[in-house]
């Protein structure tokens, strides 16, 4: 002590005191606890109540989870193994995981949906991460047709014929653009429709006769489980964003016809519950179609889900558009950009950036809404959990299936929300 306090002047300290440890209550975990959990009598009380509830929950669920049985042929065997103790019977997941994931998809073809999922990430990567080479976008354009062929199989010429429709449209646009701009737009719309209606069918059948290439055909009613959620969810998500943007632009349009069509569509869809649309797709549509027609149920559901989501998407994007200062529009006009260029280069990049949380919100909602198809008898994971319980082996099992399904959905939804956070941070241009 004396060497540090070498007092040359009685009342002035001219040396530094060595650093000492802060008091116990002011550092580390203790400080955090004191400040955050026990900072007053109210908070202390709430903390204690919360701890009690957590403890109770752990006591209720813990032994059940720790005691789980993973290898058994039926619920009865599980109970024999547990011998009266409480415990989860996750053996049902071991026994039926393939059904919860793939439905009744033929087992020797499981590689096809798996490959389609892996390629989905490859196709999405250039869209999600701009640092990747732009050439990958070609693959993204091909992917929908490739995925269709991988999932459903059948003749390879059907998706190729459909893809050629877009090529025909592009050619018509380029060809007619020399004549007249408006004509080119009409041509680009009409030519593919004509191709699909008139020529695609014969093209498919002749090419199939000449070169019968293709994977083994898998019928739609073999689809089920998480596969069906993903097919409906991902098609709905990827189609509803462009549709929603178009609807949002249409709603802001000065052209009265386009504006009213968009407003009526959006308000109608938003005024009707999704379940009603699904019932329409599954039941009502058949009354209008000629007898004997089979219009694929999954396709009907995808269309309805897409329409539903695009109406919500349109409103989310409209929110983004409304948040843009008017100056941005005027600046685009001042630069002499035409409507589409202004949208593409100035308006949309900003409006979409603002809308990211809303867009991802709609995506996540849409993905979870796919479980509603259980009400029209499609065997999504929830529907399959009913079917699995209806076998005599697993009758009476409940929570284990829902925990597994919940986990699967959580992984995808959490992934989406994390990506949206990453995107927001990356696109942040202000300096707050």
């Amino acid at each position, binding site marked *: 002590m004396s060497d540090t306090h070498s007092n040359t002047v009685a009342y002035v300290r001219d040396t530094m005191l060595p650093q000492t440890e802060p008091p116990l209550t002011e550092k580390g975990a203790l400080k955090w606890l004191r400040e955050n959990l026990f900072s007053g009598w109210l908070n202390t009380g709430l903390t204690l109540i919360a701890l009690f509830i957590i403890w109770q929950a752990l006591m209720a669920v813990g032994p059940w989870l720790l005691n789980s049985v993973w290898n058994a042929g039926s619920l009865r065997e599980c109970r024999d193994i547990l011998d009266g103790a409480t415990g989860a019977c996750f053996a049902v997941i071991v026994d039926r995981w393939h059904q919860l994931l793939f*439905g009744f998809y033929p087992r020797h073809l499981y590689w096809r949906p798996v490959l389609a999922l892996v390629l989905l990430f490859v196709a999405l990567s250039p869209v999600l991460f701009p640092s990747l080479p732009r050439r990958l976008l070609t693959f993204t354009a091909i992917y*929908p047709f490739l*995925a269709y062929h991988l999932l459903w199989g059948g003749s390879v010429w059907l998706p190729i014929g459909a893809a050629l429709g877009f090529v025909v449209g592009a050619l018509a646009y380029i060809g007619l653009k020399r004549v007249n701009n408006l004509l080119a737009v009409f041509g680009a719309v009409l030519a593919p429709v004509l191709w699909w209606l008139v020529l695609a069918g014969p093209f498919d059948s002749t090419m199939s006769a000449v070169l019968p290439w293709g994977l083994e055909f898998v019928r739609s009613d073999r689809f089920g489980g998480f596969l069906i959620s993903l*097919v409906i969810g991902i098609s709905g998500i990827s189609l509803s964003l462009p549709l929603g943007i178009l609807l949002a632009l249409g709603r802001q349009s000065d052209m009265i016809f386009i504006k009213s069509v968009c407003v009526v569509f959006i308000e109608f869809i938003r005024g009707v519950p999704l379940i009603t649309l699904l019932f329409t797709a599954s039941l009502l549509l058949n009354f209008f179609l*000629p007898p004997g027609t089979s*219009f694929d149920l999954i396709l009907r559901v995808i269309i309805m889900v897409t329409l539903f989501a695009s109406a919500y998407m349109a409103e989310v994007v409209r929110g983004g558009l409304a948040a843009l200062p008017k100056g941005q529009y005027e600046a685009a006009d001042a630069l002499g950009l035409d409507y589409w260029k202004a949208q593409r280069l100035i308006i949309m990049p900003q409006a979409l950036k603002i809308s990211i949380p809303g867009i991802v919100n709609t995506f996540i909602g849409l993905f979870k809404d796919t479980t509603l198809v259980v009400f029209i*008898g499609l065997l999504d994971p929830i529907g399959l959990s009913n079917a699995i319980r*209806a*076998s005599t082996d697993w*009758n009476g099992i409940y929570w284990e299936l829902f925990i597994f399904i919940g986990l699967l959905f959580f992984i995808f939804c959490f992934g989406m929300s994390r990506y949206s956070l990453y995107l927001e941070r990356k696109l942040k241009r202000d300096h707050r």
Partner: protein
Amino acid sequence: MKKTVFVGTFAATALVAGLANAQSTLEQVIDRGELICGSNTGQVGFGAPDADGVWQGFDVGFCRAVAAAIFDDPMAVSFVPLTSQTRFSALASGEVDVLSRNTTWTFVRDVDLQFNFAGINYYDGQGFMVKSDLGVGSAMELDGATVCIETGTTTELNLADFFRVNGMSYEPVPVDTAAEAQQQYLAGACDVYTTDVSALASSRASFATPSDHTILPEVVSKEPLGPAVRHGDDNWYDIIKWTLMALVAAEELGVTSENVAELAEGSDVPEINRLLGVEGGFGAMLGLDNEWAARAIAAVGNYGELFANTIGDNSPIGLERGMNALFADGGMMYAMPFR
């Protein structure tokens, strides 16, 4: 993925629209190469897909018999799982050819919804299950009870009728599926679980301690379950009806899946001969060939075999034949004569 399918289907729709009008159901089924059968989304013993995705069960077996009668292939059926809310619209709109999904034959469904019930393949009735420690011995002691009840079914209406007639009150706990009902009942959300006795028995068998639960002796309703078709195609109705008759008649006559091939060569009993197509040419009258019934029986067995293998003695559910025994054995199963 999406546009392509749309295009294909659109083209197919346009094509089929031109071709298909006024085809009979049988012609449609034969053209398609398979029967489309409306089945349950999952009911223990009656219809559910197994681990390989192959549908199994009592109602499913009936559809397989029809497919065997038409195509000689019991697997030529595609099953459309239907909920109790969607089943009737699916049948009416032509989405399914036949509804074989433990559906109760009632006046309104037969007349107002315009269906034809092809007969009864299972006589059921509504019962009550309670926890044994409640000490309830009769349904008449259930005044003021909370009752788990599946919505959209005839049991819901029967329950109201039963309590009203007996001057008792109850509090309904509506649930959507049997699994949910079991869970609610076990968790104590309701004192009583009511549904068809067959379903109660299979639920009870799935509980950890079945002896803690009692099925009360009262059966409060008639639930005659059977396959249904829509109005407007009497020939198709006949095919479904007589396939069911053939299965019951086969049991009455002692024709089983084992001896059917041998008996189809010809036997001394004229009715067996007519049933199995040795004489009479009955199949041709239905628009099928004469071995139709023999194939149906060979595929799923006679009524008794189908019952035993799916919900009866040979299955873990082990339901008694009870009312579903043959008339000769004191039950109510009775085939019209093959004459």
